């Protein structure tokens, strides 16, 4: 698969009632890269992601997919290029894993949902790529949180899009499962060149796993760039109002944030 699709936002503003959530955001998603959107609570991360996937209509400005406004494109065509995993998706009661993952084929099928052998192959591939092939006939209700999240990602894989956006895919998972999901997404990016954009809370995991970071503050892009450019004490202070010490992550070499609170501090660094 080639990743030639581009996703950009131009002067994107969005408000809920009186509250301005995004103000004039310009974003360029680098094709073929893994990008994380970071920032404090209520800075507009999720809103930006929802606007990028047309779940929210911007008040002003535009989201462009391959230089065309998202709102002008047919829904099914967008859905074949742009996949989306919302923050806490809900599954219908008692649905099986295979059934749910199969729903990912919707934009590729006719309106009656006819299945082709190609559809079956893609679903089988999505199940095995996420390591849940042996759970295919199980009901979603029986699965653990980590397994369930892999099912949702398998569904997004079955959608077979060049761009995949995920809203906090690691929330509510313990650390090993967080790493498992991030590894899985990295695999996907390496194997198929899928462009990945996700909202992440954990700065250190974002810096380690992502090629690009977009830091938001008060509905504006504070800074966007590589983890080395974005994760510095000055920018962390600007984005999060947080004093910190930044050092190379001994595991990956990516920048790692050591936050400095009011307690349990050996000595103040002037970095």
């Amino acid at each position, binding site marked *: 698969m080639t990743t030639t699709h581009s996703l950009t936002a131009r002067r994107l503003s969005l408000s809920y009632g009186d509250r301005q959530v995004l103000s004039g955001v310009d974003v360029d998603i680098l094709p073929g890269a893994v990008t994380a959107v970071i920032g404090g609570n209520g800075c507009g991360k999720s809103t930006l992601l*929802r606007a990028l*996937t*047309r*779940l929210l209509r911007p008040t002003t400005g535009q989201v462009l997919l391959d230089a065309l406004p998202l709102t002008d494109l047919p*829904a*099914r*065509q*967008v*859905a*074949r290029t*742009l*996949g*989306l*995993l*919302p923050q806490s*998706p*809900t*599954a*219908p*009661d*008692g*649905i*099986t894993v295979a*059934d*749910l993952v199969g*729903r*990912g084929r*919707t*934009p590729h*099928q006719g*309106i*009656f*949902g006819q299945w082709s052998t190609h559809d079956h192959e893609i679903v089988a591939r999505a199940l095995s790529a996420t390591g849940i092939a042996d759970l295919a006939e199980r*009901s979603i209700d029986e699965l653990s949180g980590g397994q369930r999240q892999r099912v949702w990602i398998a569904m997004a894989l079955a*959608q077979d899009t060049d761009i995949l956006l995920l809203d906090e895919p690691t929330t509510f998972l313990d650390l090993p499962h967080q790493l498992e999901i991030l590894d899985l997404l990295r695999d996907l990016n390496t194997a198929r060149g899928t462009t990945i954009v996700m909202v992440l809370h954990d700065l250190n995991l974002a810096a380690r796993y992502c090629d690009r970071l977009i830091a938001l503050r008060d509905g504006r892009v504070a800074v966007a760039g590589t983890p080395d450019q974005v994760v510095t004490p000055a920018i962390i202070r600007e984005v999060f109002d947080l004093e910190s010490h930044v050092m190379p992550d001994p595991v990956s070499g990516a920048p790692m944030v050591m936050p400095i609170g009011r307690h349990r501090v050996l000595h103040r660094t002037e970095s």
Partner: protein
Amino acid sequence: MVGETFYTPVEVARVIAGQSVPGASYTVGELRLPRTALAVLAGCAFGVSGVVFQTLLRNQLASPDIIGISSGAGAAGVVGIVFLHLGQAAVSGLALGAGLAVAGAIYLLSVRQGFGGTRLILVGIGVAALLQSVVTYSLSRAAAWDLPTATRWLTGSLNAASWPWVAPVAVVVTATVPAILLLDHRLAVLRLGDDLATGLGVPVRAVRISVIVAAVALIAVATAACGPIAFVAFMSGPIATRLIGPGGSPVLAAGLVGALLVLGADLLGQFALGTRYPVGVITGLLGAPYLILLLIRSRRIGAVS
């Protein structure tokens, strides 16, 4: 074939084929056959309409006979017959208009919380109570000899069944049920929630509006013909889901379950007990315990929605 006089299957078949059979032509052709046809068609309409609402609102309590759509159609039907003296087709049209108006009103009253949710159901129950009082008031002003009408609108009954009442239901069922089945696949995707459905390229709003209009038409016209037969819309979907499993589409199955429920309950009400009861009494006896069970269970889980 059940009743005080016995006609052979051959005689019944000849009446259905349009031949004139002494005695049977009237009993079967004018009494039993329209009654059976109305039971099947209205039951199917109730079942499909109920399961569509339950699917779209992701809540078993959100069936149109509980959130006031049936009451709207019923109230319009009573007013149309008792005060305006309209014909069957006009009453069906009026009921349809009222059903859509009530659906719109309930939506507007509860829209602040987004589509679905407990608020919509509570508003709907309130609207249903209000409209039921319109029915009661209208009947209290109606002519005293209009007793069959009264039982029809209060409990749901097939006693008034005749071909002119069957026709509008037949037309609406043949028009909307295939249309809903065409959208069935997209309806199944909507069960994943608006966000995912949008992400999968389903035009959420368009699908939802067209399916809701179709479901309101079904429940309204069926209610105009035989009154709000209690709980059929509410029970058919869950029973169908239980029968076919959670993976499949319950729409067609719910229609069949609805038809069977009404047909079976009417047969029971007419012949199994000493006195003849309207069909709504029998379905009410079946449905009320189920509703209570559902309320107890949802309370235990912690929320209705």
